[in-house]
């Protein structure tokens, strides 16, 4: 079991409340996944700038001088916003790839959670309520976001095992289910040059979609490809810079409910996750069909 929530806002007036709404949805899904929790949130981002979200097990020693150290290594201005064990580094988009390499030298223990113009990922082990509080998720604004509560099956209960996974700029994936052919795909995707850092099956799913899109597929086509190539159970929710998508495997035993109003499109593993959204009483509520790709973008 696991819990997934997602919210894609159409109404700009709701954007300052995105984090608060997603947090409430996430906490409702605690009994589907009390091991760990994570959220990918999209927002902000200036032209020509990139955001790198990093995580450290020793944030007190890793973070204080990090912006200066990285700035010196890149010869370019870097700013840092710390949130508990995570920090968001703001830097020139042209330096993003170089920054990854520099970080591996400067702070070898650091994990890069995500990079891109708009995405930030926060995830840790613990109850969703506690994870949300540590990062003050409720105070975050944004255009859309995806959250996950984890009950581990395929890999250890660690930060690396928590969702969301990001394997490409501004892309992320959360998953309820288990993939059975992920080891083959991990080897193949690594040969294709994809970056896969954990033993987790979902990260392979994320890398698969990144690879498909790198080869020219649209997100919709990449998700269609997943239906053919990935074996196992999955309800996937995917985020990109300007949209989010949903697909369920053909057996569709992992639950999913969606709701749409003029203000938002929302996803929940269960209807419970959606009950506090504004206007839910009159929203169009439906269960996504098996083996059918759904996608919204702005």
């Amino acid at each position, binding site marked *: 079991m696991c819990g997934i929530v997602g919210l894609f806002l159409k109404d700009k007036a709701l954007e300052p409340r995105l984090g608060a709404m997603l947090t409430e949805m996430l906490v409702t899904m605690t009994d589907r996944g009390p091991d760990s929790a994570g959220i990918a949130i999209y927002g902000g981002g200036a032209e020509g700038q990139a955001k790198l979200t990093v995580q450290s097990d020793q944030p007190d020693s890793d973070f204080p001088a990090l912006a200066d150290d990285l700035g010196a290594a890149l010869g370019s201005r870097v700013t840092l916003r710390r949130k508990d064990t995570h920090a968001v580094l703001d830097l020139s988009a042209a330096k993003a790839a170089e920054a990854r390499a520099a970080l591996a030298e400067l702070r070898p223990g650091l994990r890069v959670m995500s990079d891109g113009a708009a995405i930030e990922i926060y995830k840790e082990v613990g109850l969703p309520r506690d994870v949300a509080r540590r990062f003050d998720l409720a105070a975050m604004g944004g255009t859309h976001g995806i959250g996950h509560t984890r009950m581990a099956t395929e890999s250890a209960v660690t930060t690396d095992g928590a969702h969301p996974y990001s394997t490409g700029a501004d892309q992320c994936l959360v998953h309820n289910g288990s993939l059975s052919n992920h080891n083959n795909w991990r080897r193949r995707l690594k040969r294709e040059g994809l970056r896969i850092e954990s033993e987790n099956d979902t990260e392979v799913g994320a890398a698969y979609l990144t690879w498909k899109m790198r080869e020219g597929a649209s997100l919709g086509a990449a998700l269609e490809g997943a239906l053919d190539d990935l074996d196992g159970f999955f309800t996937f929710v995917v985020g990109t810079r300007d949209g989010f998508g949903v697909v369920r495997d053909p*057996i*569709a*035993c992992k*639950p999913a*409910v969606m709701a749409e109003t003029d203000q938002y499109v929302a996803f929940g593993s269960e*209807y*419970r996750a959606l009950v506090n959204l504004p206007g839910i009483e009159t929203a169009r509520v439906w269960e996504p069909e*098996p083996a059918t790709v759904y996608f919204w973008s702005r």
Partner: protein
Amino acid sequence: MQSIDLATASLREMNATLQAQAAQTNATQWEILNPRGAHAIAVGLDAPIEVTVRGSTGYYCAGMNKQATVHVTGSAGPGVAENMMSGTVIIDGDASQYAGATGRGGLLVIKGNAASRCGISMKGIDIVVQGSIGHMSAFMGQAGNLVVCGDAGDALGDSLYEARLFVRGSVKSLGADCIEKDMRPEHLDILRDLLARAGVDARPEEFRRYGSARKLYNFDIDNVAAY
């Protein structure tokens, strides 16, 4: 009308109260407010009471029902009326997967659509769906009737025993050992009665009947190489 508000009462209090109603109770009318997708609402009832749930429910609403009538004014999550023994369960909206699974008796009416595995392993329950149903419905159905006013998804009636399936719309595909059968007068009578009890305005003659070809009942020596 007795009212239980789940905004203030706990789920256990609500179920314990409903389960404590005796066969001769005077409190026959109940309503449950603010279900908000909670799991296991109105389960294990065993008295001729009428319970109206005002809103949508989560997993396993009205499971193991006996005698009671449970009416959900919204939609129902997975496993609604699972293992129902008798009584009536009515869902005004849609039902998620495995609605009426393993049900032994009673009537389940779904006014919207039902998702996959509707009536899986049904053992005597009658299910009437006014919309359409998803894949693998009535898988290994042993007894009872499944009536679908809309369409059926893939693999309808796979490995079916003696449950009767009636579909008005299209069937995407039939499962192993499930075949279309002639609609005889006694089937039209069964269907007419079910449609009337479910309050559905449809003519029995518009439906087709599907059932077991009974080829999987006994071991076939020609298949020995497969084992």
